[in-house]
């Protein structure tokens, strides 16, 4: 009986406690800079798409929310014909970012993606592509990849450095 009254009294004292609720839309919670939220596709410093449509992200994805189709441009460089992420399935795990060999796919701290229509959560490549290089400002995959393209050997393409001579030790 006494314990019941003590319980009720201690609950009543919570009247004067600070409330822990964060009034969300007006008052934002702290988000770590490396928080994993909405997925974007970044571009290299020259403005080209970084994605080479290797499908590694689609394979790494545990919920199969990424779908893409590879194709090649006139220089025999691979790029995605379409790149589709279904954000109603995405769990923001970041495995796609880990899997990506070209730093193309990156996760941002944005998570406010509410929609009335579920279909609006399926993002196409135009929705995903951003104008900048994201977290890796200087990196340009095609300059360091050592992949030959149509008509030109390694290191002969525009703005591409010559390949490192592997058999000679001196530079």
């Amino acid at each position, binding site marked *: 009986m006494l314990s019941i009254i003590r*319980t*009720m009294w201690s*609950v*009543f004292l*919570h*009247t004067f406690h*600070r*409330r822990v*609720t964060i*009034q969300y839309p007006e008052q934002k919670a702290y988000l770590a800079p490396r928080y994993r939220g909405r997925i974007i596709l970044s571009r290299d410093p020259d403005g080209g798409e970084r994605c080479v449509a290797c499908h590694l992200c689609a394979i790494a994805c545990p919920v199969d929310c990424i779908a893409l189709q590879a194709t090649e441009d006139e220089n025999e460089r691979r790029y995605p014909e379409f790149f589709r992420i279904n954000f109603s399935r995405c769990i923001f795990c970041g495995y796609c970012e880990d899997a990506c060999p070209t730093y193309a796919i990156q996760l941002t701290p944005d998570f406010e993606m509410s929609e009335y229509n579920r279909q609006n959560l399926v993002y196409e490549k135009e929705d995903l592509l951003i104008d900048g290089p994201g977290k890796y400002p200087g990196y340009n995959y095609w300059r360091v990849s050592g992949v030959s393209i149509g008509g030109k050997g390694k290191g002969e393409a525009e703005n591409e450095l010559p390949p490192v001579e592997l058999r000679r030790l001196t530079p």
Partner: protein
Amino acid sequence: MTSPYPFASIFGILIVALSLSAALIWVERRLLALWQDRYGPNRAGPFGLLQVLADMIKIFAKEDWIPPFADKAVFVIAPAIIMVTVLLSFAVLPIAPGIIVADLNIGLLFFLGMSSLGVYSIVLAGWSSGNKYSLLGGLRAAAQMMSYEVFMGMSLMGVVLLAGSFNLTTIVEAQSKLWFVIPQFLGFILFLIAGVAEARRLPFDLPEAEAELVAGFHSEYSGMKFGMFFVGEYLGITLISAMIAVLFFGGWMGPWLPPIVWFFIKVFAFLCFFILLRASLPRLRFDQLMSLGWKVMFPLALANLVVTGAIVTVFK
């Protein structure tokens, strides 16, 4: 026998009771949130007051579905019974001098009778749903209400002895010198516990016990029929609070303020107390509930009655 303005009283009490119990939805959620360090509904309108309206619109717009395995006639009647019995009980409630629908000379017994008829609503709802969880809820309700009604009536007999009447107005007037909560403190505690059990509130909400019985007797109910159970429950709490105020805390009596204000202050204080009970206490197990009722509360109520009777006889 009745008030000078019967129709004004009837509609006034009806409107106040219904709107008060609707507003209780908001009050309860806000208070529970307050005691759990949250805010509760605070978006719709100022302080979230329009939440009541939003809930009403939602509940009216819901599909009103009768399951094919239900006993249709009884299924439809059941939620109406609780509304009727609780609203009828408000008729004998003296709110202020002159503001009462029917000043019956057996007002207290009328209240007890109506609260005992209210059980049918729960039991029949549980049975007619044709669902095993609902049936269990109905069975629990029957056993619980039966046991708690006995000492609920018993605990009030002390008040009746002191006031010398079953008439609620007379009972209130008999408290002009001393509120009955002091000479009848045990009776007050017993009636409080029985009242919580009669209103099927936590910690005695065994009939609906959403953790084990899904939602007990109203598992199969939807739409406005569910809404009637919901409002009926809140009306029940309001009624029990008002009864406690009338029987033990001197009804409308109080200094300075007008009587009706005092009455509502007392009722609101007990409503908050009921919500505090819900916020702080866990649900009892069913066998604990029954043995508490029959082995602790019932003998205490009997002893209270006998001692009060002896004292009244000696000092008269």
